[in-house]
């Protein structure tokens, strides 16, 4: 018997009991829709995280001061004021696995333009900072080496700062006063979006490091930086670069085994990789929970197929008497079950995709529907049909034609 004929018979059987077929399918529809929607929400979340990794810049190592002890009191991490611009320069030139190193200082203060003012974070950094962070300048120019060397009073504004001080006007070329000192705005940075913690990453002002050290921060010694941001040459070299930095700074700061290091290195992409991993685990978990409903749906299919076999015992008997082989009967009932689950799967995929789109539109959650998850869902629904359809079909094929014909 050819496949098209089998398909026709199965379709007719499903059509004769439309309501029952639909209710049976409903289990699969809900299961597949749940899997698709959950996977979409989950992969949307991990996509956002990987975007954030990109916004922080990849292969980044952060060097921050350690604690220091003065008069028996230990300061917390970052208390030591021993990292210097020279350390940053040395890391950049002497560590072979390092691409760039930028010393930074951080302050906060009021920024004034005309009759507008705004309190923000002021970051001092060498020009390498923008290479490391991969922050493009959308208007104007970045901080140059001449700005740095000459401690010129220029600044770059983030979008939030620019909007609050200038509205929609172009601030490039204007003068702003930072902590009452006039600076020329040379450029605007691209919007970076929110951090994984929900912080606005577009609320800062950037000035050359030396300008900041001279004018904006107070420290015991000159040339002190509050952190050094380092970019390794590649992802594989991050660990090696971290070790090189530690060795170099141990040497420069004369750290011995007996002395506690006055700095700490942190690997940022590691932190985010963990975050991404947890998002992936979450989406997997959601998918697993949803697939339980698929199994429940599958049991529903099996149940109805068993009822159907009993109901149609006479039909099976007739078919066998006029020449249907066991395999013909097996195939007929299997086709029915698989057709049910595949139709349910298709409707479920449409509903799940619609649901995910609705979630991202009305709740603002990021969702992503991948071809991969659709393919998996579809194949899975077919597999549910084969798995749960086999037992009832086997039962039908094993009937004795004489008993089946006599069945009332």
């Amino acid at each position, binding site marked *: *018997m*050819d496949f098209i*004929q089998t398909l026709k018979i199965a379709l*007719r059987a499903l059509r*004769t009991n439309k309501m029952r077929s639909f209710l049976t399918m409903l289990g699969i529809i809900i299961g597949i829709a749940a899997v698709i929607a959950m996977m979409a929400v989950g992969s949307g979340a991990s996509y956002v995280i990987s975007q954030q990794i990109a916004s922080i810049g990849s292969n980044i190592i952060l060097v921050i001061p350690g604690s220091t002890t003065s008069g028996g009191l230990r300061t917390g991490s970052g208390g030591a004021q021993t990292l210097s611009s020279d350390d940053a320069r040395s890391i950049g030139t002497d560590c072979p696995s390092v691409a760039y190193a930028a010393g930074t200082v951080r302050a906060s203060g009021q920024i004034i333009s005309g009759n507008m003012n705004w309190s923000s974070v002021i970051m001092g950094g060498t020009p390498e900072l923008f290479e490391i962070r991969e922050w493009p300048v959308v208007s104007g120019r970045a901080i140059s080496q001449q700005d740095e060397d000459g401690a010129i009073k220029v600044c770059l504004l983030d979008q939030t700062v620019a909007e609050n001080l200038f509205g929609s006007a172009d601030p490039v070329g204007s003068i702003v006063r930072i902590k009452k000192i006039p600076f020329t705005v040379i450029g605007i940075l691209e919007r970076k979006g929110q951090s994984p913690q929900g912080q606005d990453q577009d609320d800062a002002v950037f000035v050359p490091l030396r300008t900041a050290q001279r004018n904006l921060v107070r420290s015991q010694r000159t040339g002190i930086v509050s952190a050094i941001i380092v970019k390794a040459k590649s992802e594989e070299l991050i660990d090696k670069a971290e070790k090189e930095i530690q060795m170099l700074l141990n040497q420069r700061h004369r750290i011995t085994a007996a002395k506690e290091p006055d700095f700490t290195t942190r690997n940022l992409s590691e932190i985010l990789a963990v975050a991404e991993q947890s998002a992936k685990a979450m989406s997997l978990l959601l998918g697993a929970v949803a697939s339980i409903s698929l199994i429940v749906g599958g049991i529903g299919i099996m149940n109805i197929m068993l009822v159907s076999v009993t109901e149609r015992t*006479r*039909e099976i*008997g*007739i*078919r*066998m*008497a*006029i*020449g*249907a*082989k*066991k*395999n*013909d009967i097996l195939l007929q009932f299997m086709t029915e079950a698989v057709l049910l689950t595949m139709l349910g799967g298709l409707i479920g995929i449409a509903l799940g995709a619609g649901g995910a789109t609705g979630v991202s539109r009305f709740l603002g959650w990021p969702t992503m529907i991948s071809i991969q998850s659709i393919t998996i869902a579809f194949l899975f629904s077919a597999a549910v049909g084969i798995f749960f359809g086999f037992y009832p079909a086997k039962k039908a094929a094993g009937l004795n*034609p*004489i008993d089946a*014909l006599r069945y009332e």
Partner: protein
Amino acid sequence: MSSVISLTDIRRVFIMGDQQFEALKGVSFDITTGEFVAIMGASGSGKSTCMNVLGCLDPPTSGRYLLDGLDVGGMGTNELADIRNKKLGFVFQGFNLLARTPAVENVELPLIYAGLGSRERRRQALIAMEQVGLAGKENNHPSQLSGGQQQRVAIARALVNNPAVILADEPTGNLDSSTSEEIMNLFTALNRQGITIIMVTHEHDVAAFAGRQITFRDGRIISDSLTTATV
């Protein structure tokens, strides 16, 4: 004349728990091509078991069964399904048509399992339906047909694969007397065209349409006689 069916010492023993019941106790007969045979007997006489054996639905415990020259004994279930499909046509008491399926598709059913293409199936099914006088009723569902018409559809289904033998199990059991006569006249007409028919019945006036009557009692043949009279 060549035998289309040849039974030699057929026995059928049913085992239920530790009890044995011998439904056929050594049955032998030959049927030649073109015969119209009625198998008679009370219920429990073994006539239905004999019919199941003849229909290749139930293999005998022992004995030899030749159908159209082929030894059916020792065949597997798939081979038996093939034999039923190609050599036999069944007509049942309860018509046994597929509900919610047009008449013509019911007639086509054996040809589906024979592996014929849809156009050829339809062509042969229409010929068979015309043979039983149902031209024009192709698309009616069984529920839209009278009992007599449903049995005609069943006969068309039995005819469609050009079988060596048509087996009819109480074909008039569910019909009133005038419709019964109609169906029996159809069988007679088909038999005149050379089709071999074996029919199980317990009604003497129905059996009288057949040219030969085999009567069973307690698993044995007690009479096998030719009838000349036609009612």
